[in-house]
C-alpha cells in the first residue's frame, strides 16, 4: 500500500544546504502536476523572489507565481513579528488587552529574539493556511537551524514559556494589581530563592515588565495551547511528509541521521533524503581544464570534489539501507534566479523523486 500523496511537505535541514531553493522547485513541480500549491518560506533573499517572480507584497499575503503550470502556484514569505502580532490581535479579548501586549517592552524583545519564535510562527501560519484549505498542497521551507531540531521543539518550548504556570507563579505574587511590588512574598523558601536571585540579577524593572506581559497574556493562554496541540497533530498527520535536505559530505551525515531518527521517533513521516549539490565525478585524466601550470592542480581538485561527494552519498546509502530512499540533486551550473531556471530544477526533482510523492 502506498501512502497518499502528501498535502503538506515540510522541507528541513541545516542552514546553507539549499532548502529554500528546493522547496520552491518542489512547489513548482507540484503545480505542474496539476495541484494548487503554496510555497511558504522564511527566506528573504532577493534571488528567490526573482526566481519566483514575486515582490515584497508576498510578505503580506500569498502571491501567485506566473510559471505556466496547469495549476496555481503561490508564494508567501513569512514574517514572524507580523504573524505574532496577528495572533495577539486575534486572541486578545479586547482592544485594550491587545494594545497592552503589543506595546509592552518585553513583548517587543520577546517577539524578535525568543528562541523558537520564528519556528513557532511558521507552524502557526501554516496552520491558518491549512485550515483555509485553498491549496491541494503546501510546501513549507523551515528556518535554518544548525541541527534542524528547533523547528519541531519550538511549539512546545514556546508554549512552555508563555503558558507556564511556572513563570506566572514566579512573577504574580511580586506585584499587586497596580504594579507595585508587594511587601512580602508568599512563595516560601523556593520562591524566595528564585526571587532573590532574579531580583539581584536583573532588577525589578524588568520583572515588572515581564509580570505585566504575562498578566496581559493570560487571556490568550487557552487559545495558544489549543493551537499548539493542533499544530502538533497536523505535523504528525499521515498527509504530512518531511523531506530532509543534506549535503553529500561524510561530515554532514551524523547530523542528518540524528535528525532523521528524531523525526521518526516523534512519529513524523519522513520521505527520501534530498542530497543536494552533488558534484559530478571526474574520471581521472579527463578534465583538461586549463592550459599551463595550474591545469594539473585544477583537474586534481575536480576529481577530489567528485570523489568526496561519491564517498558521502555511498556512506549515507549504506546507513539508510532499507530504512529510506535517497535522491541525488546534482550541482547545477547556476543558482536559479528566474522561473525558467527553477523549472529545470523542478524537472530534475520530478524525475528523481519516487512516484506518488508529488
Amino acid at each position, binding site marked *: 500500500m502506498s501512502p497518499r500523496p502528501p498535502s503538506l511537505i515540510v522541507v528541513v535541514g541545516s542552514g546553507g544546504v539549499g532548502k529554500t531553493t528546493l522547496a520552491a522547485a518542489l512547489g513548482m513541480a507540484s503545480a505542474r502536476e496539476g495541484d494548487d500549491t503554496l510555497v511558504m518560506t522564511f527566506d528573504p533573499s532577493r534571488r528567490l523572489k526573482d526566481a519566483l517572480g514575486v515582490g515584497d507584497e508576498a510578505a503580506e499575503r500569498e502571491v501567485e507565481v506566473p510559471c505556466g503550470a496547469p495549476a496555481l502556484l503561490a508564494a508567501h514569505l513569512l514574517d514572524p513579528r507580523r504573524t505574532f502580532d496577528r495572533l495577539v490581535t486575534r486572541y486578545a479579548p479586547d482592544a485594550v488587552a491587545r494594545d497592552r501586549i503589543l506595546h509592552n517592552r518585553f513583548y517587543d524583545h520577546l517577539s524578535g*529574539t525568543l528562541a523558537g519564535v520564528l519556528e513557532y510562527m511558521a507552524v502557526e501560519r501554516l496552520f491558518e493556511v491549512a485550515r483555509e484549505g485553498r491549496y491541494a498542497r503546501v510546501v513549507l521551507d523551515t528556518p535554518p537551524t544548525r541541527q534542524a531540531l528547533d523547528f519541531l521543539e519550538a511549539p512546545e518550548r514556546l508554549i512552555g514559556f508563555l503558558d507556564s504556570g511556572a513563570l506566572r507563579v514566579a512573577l504574580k505574587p511580586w506585584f499587586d494589581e497596580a504594579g507595585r511590588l508587594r511587601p512580602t512574598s508568599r512563595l516560601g523558601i523556593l520562591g524566595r530563592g528564585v526571587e532573590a536571585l532574579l531580583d*539581584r540579577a536583573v532588577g525589578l524593572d524588568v520583572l515588572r515588565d515581564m509580570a505585566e506581559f504575562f498578566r496581559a497574556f493570560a487571556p490568550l493562554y487557552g487559545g495558544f495551547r489549543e493551537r499548539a496541540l493542533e499544530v502538533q497533530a497536523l505535523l504528525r498527520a499521515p498527509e504530512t511528509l518531511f523531506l530532509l535536505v543534506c549535503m553529500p559530505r561524510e561530515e554532514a551525515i551524523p547530523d542528518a541521521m540524528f535528525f532523521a531518527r528524531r523525526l521518526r521517533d516523534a512519529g513524523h513521516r519522513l520521505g527520501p533524503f534530498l542530497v543536494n549539490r552533488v558534484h559530478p565525478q571526474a574520471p581521472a585524466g579527463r578534465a583538461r581544464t586549463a592550459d599551463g601550470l595550474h591545469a594539473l592542480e585544477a583537474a586534481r581538485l575536480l576529481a577530489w570534489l567528485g570523489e568526496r561527494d561519491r564517498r558521502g552519498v555511498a556512506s549515507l546509502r549504506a546507513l539508510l539501507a532499507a530504512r529510506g530512499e535517497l535522491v541525488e540533486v546534482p550541482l547545477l551550473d547556476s*543558482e536559479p534566479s528566474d522561473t525558467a531556471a527553477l523549472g529545470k530544477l523542478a524537472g530534475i526533482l520530478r524525475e528523481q523523486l519516487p512516484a506518488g510523492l508529488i
Partner: protein
Amino acid sequence: MPRRARRPRASTLLDRLAAEELIVVTGKGGVGKSAVAGALARLVSGRGRRVLLLETDPRESLHQYLAVPPSGGEIVAVGPRLLLQNLRPSAVLDELVREQLRLDALSRRVLSSPVYRHFADAAPGLKEIAVLGHAFRLVRGLARRGAPRIDLVVLDAPATGHGVSLLAAPALAAEVIRGGPFGRMAAELSRFVADRGSCAIVAVALAEEMPVEEALDLQRMLAERLHRQADLLVVNEVLPSFGDESEGSDHDDPLVSLYRRRRQLAARQLARLRRDWRGPVAELAMLPLDRGPELLDAISDSLAAQLDRPIAPEPA
C-alpha cells in the same frame, strides 16, 4: 607626508587581531567557520598570547582539526599556548546561580526548579550573554579561582541565528535591564563587544550569493546596532580559475563547462564584495582536503600570508 607614530604591535592585521581580547568568528553553518576559527586561534597563539578556542555547539567539531579527542566541556590544552573548550551555555548560567546564591542547598533547589529552567531556556539573549560573559571573565581574570590564565578567546560563534544577534544580545539586555549586577554585566559586555580595541569580529562566507548577502547584511547591522564594523571577511572555498574566465565560454567537456560557470558565479560575488564590503577580505582557495589537521595547516598558512602584511592606517 608626515610619519605618524604607530603602535608597534599593530603593524599588520594579524598583529592587530593578536592584540585583541576576543575574536568572534561568525557565519552560517557549512561555510567553514570552525576551520577559520581554529586557524586564527593557532596564528594568534603563535604571537605569544595564551589563547582559548571556544565552541558552543553540542556537536563538537573543532577537535577534529586539532587531532585531539573531544574536550567534553572542560578547558583542555591542545597546543603551545592553545586551549580548547566546548561550552554549554546553560552550564555557565548554572554556575552564575551558584555564585550568586552561595548556599549549596538553595542553589540546588533553584537549579532544579521549573521556573528557573524555563527562564534559562527561553529568556531572550540569556545564552548569548552567558557565552560572551564567560569569555569576558576569562580574559579579564574574573573567572573562578583555578581557571587558567587566558589572554585571548577565539569564539567559534553558534551557527544558528544571525551573527549580529549574538553580538547585540548584551546591548539589548542592557536596554531592558537597567540595574542590578546582571544589568551592569550586560552593559559592560555591550561596551566590550562594541570596542574594536578589545573585540574583533571576523565574518566567514562562501563566494555564493546568499552567504555574501548575509555578510553584507552583518556589516550593515553591526554599524546600525553596535556602531562598529567587522575587522575581516574570510571568503572560504573559492574555486580556482579554469582557464578562460569570460562568461558564456563553453568548453567541449561538460564538466569543465560546469565548473567554469560555477567559477564565474564565484567571481561575480567576489567582485561584489570588493565593491561593497568595507574592510579587509581574505580569500581561501577550495582545497582537495577533508576536514582535519592538514586542512587546518593549509588554511593557517594561507591566512598568515594574507593577514601578516602591513596595513594602511584606517581613517579616524
